[in-house]
């Protein structure tokens, strides 16, 4: 399952979601805005604290990176 760790009002986060929508790829949104504990999930998954983080199988993609998303989708 593809997961997008994001906050609601973050532009790059919404761009990742829109891009996956445009490709008709299903994904789960993990909203991490409210609690610091939730934010620690981002840290555990990606080793850093910026969102968005997208996980596609073993790929962990930080920010909106079309090329990396395409590559990960092609391999999945």
């Amino acid at each position, binding site marked *: 399952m593809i997961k997008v760790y994001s906050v609601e009002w973050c*532009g790059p986060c919404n761009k990742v979601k829109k891009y996956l929508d445009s490709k008709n790829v299903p994904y789960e949104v993990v909203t991490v805005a409210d609690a610091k504990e939730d934010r620690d999930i981002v840290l555990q998954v990606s080793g*850093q*604290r910026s969102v968005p983080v997208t996980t596609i199988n073993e790929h962990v993609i930080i920010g909106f990176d079309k090329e990396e998303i395409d590559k990960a989708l092609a391999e999945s």
Partner: protein
Amino acid sequence: MKPIKEIDLMIIGAGPAGLTAAIYAARAGLQTLVLENNIIGGQVRLSYTIENYPGFEEIKGNELADKMEEQAVKAGAQIDEFDFIEKVSLKDHEKLIETGDCLYKPQAVIIATGANPKKLPIPSEQKYLGKGVHYCGVCDGASYKDEVIAVVGGGNAALEEAVFLSKLAKKVIIIRRHNYFKGEAKALEAVENTPNIEIMYNWDLVDVQGEKFVDSARIKNTQTHEVKEIALKAVFGYIGTEPKTDLFKESIHLTPSKYIPTNEKMETNIKGVYAAGDVREKEFRQITTAVADGTIAALQAEKYITK
């Protein structure tokens, strides 16, 4: 072979300048395509609140960006944020823009690519990027709830983001290398009225350090040259912007600072190519000045196309 598409107007960049140009151009009946490889709304979308755009005493950055985008689309402009530009050739007699999917031949081009936040000029910037070095308060501020953090910079963006971050963090320190701010008096007043913001005038950020994540910053007094360390978990950089003009450096004249010089009609040195917004060489870079530029560029492009 990519399909060739002939269109009236190509607008590169969907910030306030590009979206305003799109509204005017589409309403004038021009077939208008806006390409954006980053975020629709540009820097506006990354701002928590905006208090100096007429008609809105206070509006969230993403709301204003949504409104501009909706208006441009309703007017008839097409916006594509996933087809990235690969090559650009701009000449008086022909404009070619090659994207991942198409080869566009627009009659006129408006460059409204805007500017990116400048990276903090510290040795460990890359090492701690996302690990205590950040540039987007609304995206990453929540990670530092109840922590001590710093904002570096002296303009409106620094002041406004400090106020936003003060709602999350235990304490926000503004590191300011001069003894004054460039931002508006009202924005400074809001900072001064926020109890958990401390302003450190005449201090400059030297570097950040920590084991895996930032846990302190080294700062230097610009007057006395005293150096000291302060404990904090993150620094948010708002030290200005740099223009996004790399794509065009072979095609049009740029200033030594890489901005695009234009005349008051937003014309560049190439006929039918205009520049608008923060990417243009000018003194003031505000949302209001960007939308003014976008208006003029679109009206001039219309005149050029229909002449």
